[in-house]
């Protein structure tokens, strides 16, 4: 299989899953329909109907981690091609990436010292 066929297969998998789900929905529909009754569709909020939509501000208390996560996630984009050619390139590759990771790790330590790793 060449690369194009492989991606075609993955696309077919997605379509297959959607098809399966549609069949399940049709099966459930055939067994019985949902009765529309008042009060049935209230979301689970301890019996109280919330006045506003719940899509309001949520305090993401992990934002300190999230900022550092961005730096680490970008770094990973470089790591994959590096990992593949690592053994050919040898010691130089270890030093190159070692310096890069050391700087990143110092950043992590600095963030830690400044209280980034805390529930804000």
């Amino acid at each position: 299989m060449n690369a194009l066929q492989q991606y075609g297969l993955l696309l077919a998998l997605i379509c297959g899953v959607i098809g399966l789900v549609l069949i399940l929905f049709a099966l459930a529909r055939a067994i019985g329909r949902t009765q529309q009754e008042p009060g049935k569709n209230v979301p689970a909020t301890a019996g109280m109907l919330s006045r506003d939509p719940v899509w309001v501000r949520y305090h993401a208390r992990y934002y300190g981690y999230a900022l550092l996560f961005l730096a680490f996630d970008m770094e990973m984009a470089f790591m994959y091609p590096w990992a593949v050619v690592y053994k050919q390139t040898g010691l130089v590759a270890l030093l190159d990436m070692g310096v890069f990771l050391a700087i990143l790790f110092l950043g992590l330590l600095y963030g830690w010292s400044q209280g980034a790793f805390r529930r804000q």
Partner: protein
Amino acid sequence: MNTLVIVLSLLAGAYLVAVLEAWLATGRFRLAAPAWAAVALLGRESIVPRTPDRIFFETAPVLLLIAALLAAAVLPLSPSMVMANLATGALFVNAALAYVLVALLMAGWGSDSAYALVGGWRFLGQVIAYSMLIVMPITAVAMRAESLLTTDIVSSQEAVWNILYQPIGFVLFFVASMAVAFLPPFDLPIAVGDLAGGVEAEYTGVRLAVFRLGRMVLVITLAAATTVFYLGGWMGPVLPPWAWSAIKILAVSAAMLLGGYTLPRIREAHLLAWCWKLGIPLALINLFIVGVMVLIWP
């Protein structure tokens, strides 16, 4: 044909995981339990909450199933039994697993319910905790294999399996996999008894059935990934390759389920702190150790 066999065996594996989970939850071993549960769910009403974000609400369960299946598509069960042996296989596993987050956040947002939304945001925090511990160990595996092809990764473990070659990476990847599949003690987004079901709270009937199926397939996928990356994939004496894959995958998924069920649920703040203060330094040390070892003793 090959694809069909693999998909069916994945579904069979997911069924066995569901049997095991029901056994753990109820204390009774019943082989038919998941089938009856599925029939019951299909027979129930599937209620849509009153002000949903309809597109997100409907997409979420399907997307979870798709993400799990796409990640499984690049993992080999034997040298020839792989759906799509992509040249970027190990990276593709990550890319597909990233959509687990999207699916759960959609499920939380879509139902416009406070508990569900809190579950969704919590899972975002969980992703920030575990995701580096998935990615960095996989890089170390790719360094040894000199390739991102999953079949090459398995054959690179001919002499010594990666579980012995890079044990730190294995432990990190195993724990992080449990967090990806939100198995206890990392079941923060659904948190039964705490968030009233969290992201699952507003799903009923057939939609909940799809959601649960997606999660079971996800468990099997992650067990398969652990097997391929660390346990030598299809390798083993006497038995045919596919049988070894099946044994290892089922053993790993059983270990994932059993490992967590006796532990109390971890708090999100603690999970983040453990992963960043201990997990990521360990993952970097693992990269360094593997880097030196690959040069000295491949």
